[in-house]
């Protein structure tokens, strides 16, 4: 099954530390597996487009997963995986635009909040979103942080009882932004 996956610039998965060999000129990279002692107990992961905001890192790929493939919450797991091709549209400029977009949505949500209650808290997080984005040592790192803080702000702005729906809503908006910008389908077409 084809899916998407992020790695660091070093080709490593940020969650299980596994190294995914780079594709050669001729074709996909070699298959990679995860050791038994690893977060998914020996399984590797990929993502649908809707999952991507939860896994942001330096390089975005189309990946292939093989062996007892399972669709789970926020990821697709399998016994082994390999890198197929790089999605070059995900670069520094794209990550920076993603951050600006998160900040803009967050600012709109905060502005719509009643003046008392949690609004000062949300305003504080909005400041943090902008500041951490600036201070991050890489655009991908900034994007991952902004996505998280943006979700937190959305949850708070949704008011009492609305927290979960608010964060889900923001994460969906983030995923939609990436899909539109990078022309992604839910899973890659073969």
């Amino acid at each position: 099954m084809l899916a998407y996956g992020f790695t660091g610039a070093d080709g490593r998965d940020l969650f299980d530390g596994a190294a995914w060999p780079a594709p050669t000129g001729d074709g996909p990279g070699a298959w990679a597996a995860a050791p038994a002692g690893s977060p998914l107990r020996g399984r590797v992961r990929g993502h649908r487009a809707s999952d991507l905001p939860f896994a942001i890192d330096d390089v975005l790929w189309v990946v292939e997963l093989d062996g007892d493939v399972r669709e789970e919450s926020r990821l697709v797991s399998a016994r082994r995986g390999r890198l197929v091709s790089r999605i070059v549209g995900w670069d520094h400029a794209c990550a920076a635009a993603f951050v600006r977009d998160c900040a803009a949505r967050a600012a709109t949500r905060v502005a719509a909040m009643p003046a008392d209650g949690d609004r000062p808290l949300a305003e504080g997080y909005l400041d943090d979103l902008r500041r951490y984005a600036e201070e991050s040592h890489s655009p991908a790192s900034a994007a991952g942080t902004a996505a998280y803080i943006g979700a937190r702000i959305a949850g708070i702005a949704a008011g009492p009882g609305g927290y979960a729906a608010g964060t889900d809503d923001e994460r969906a908006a983030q995923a939609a932004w990436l899909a539109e910008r990078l022309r992604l389908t839910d899973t890659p077409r073969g």
Partner: protein
Amino acid sequence: MNDEGTRFGWLTCSEIVELITDYIEGDLPGPERERFEEHISSCAPCRQYLSQMRTTVEAAGRLTEEEVPEPTMDALLEAFRDWNRP
């Protein structure tokens, strides 16, 4: 107003540090693993700590790459031979 962990269910960095071994070993149950990963994906210092912990484990695993000294091996092979003589 402020107990964020309780209100929002987000993990703090100090909790991440305490859960890190369970995470690396695959011993966190699904929902907790998800919360852990949501934090890691957003927090560069914790990513750093996780990566350092993995490096530590890898490095510890490389301590046993010494060769067996020849006299030791010879003596052991002789003992093996003696025991197995028909």
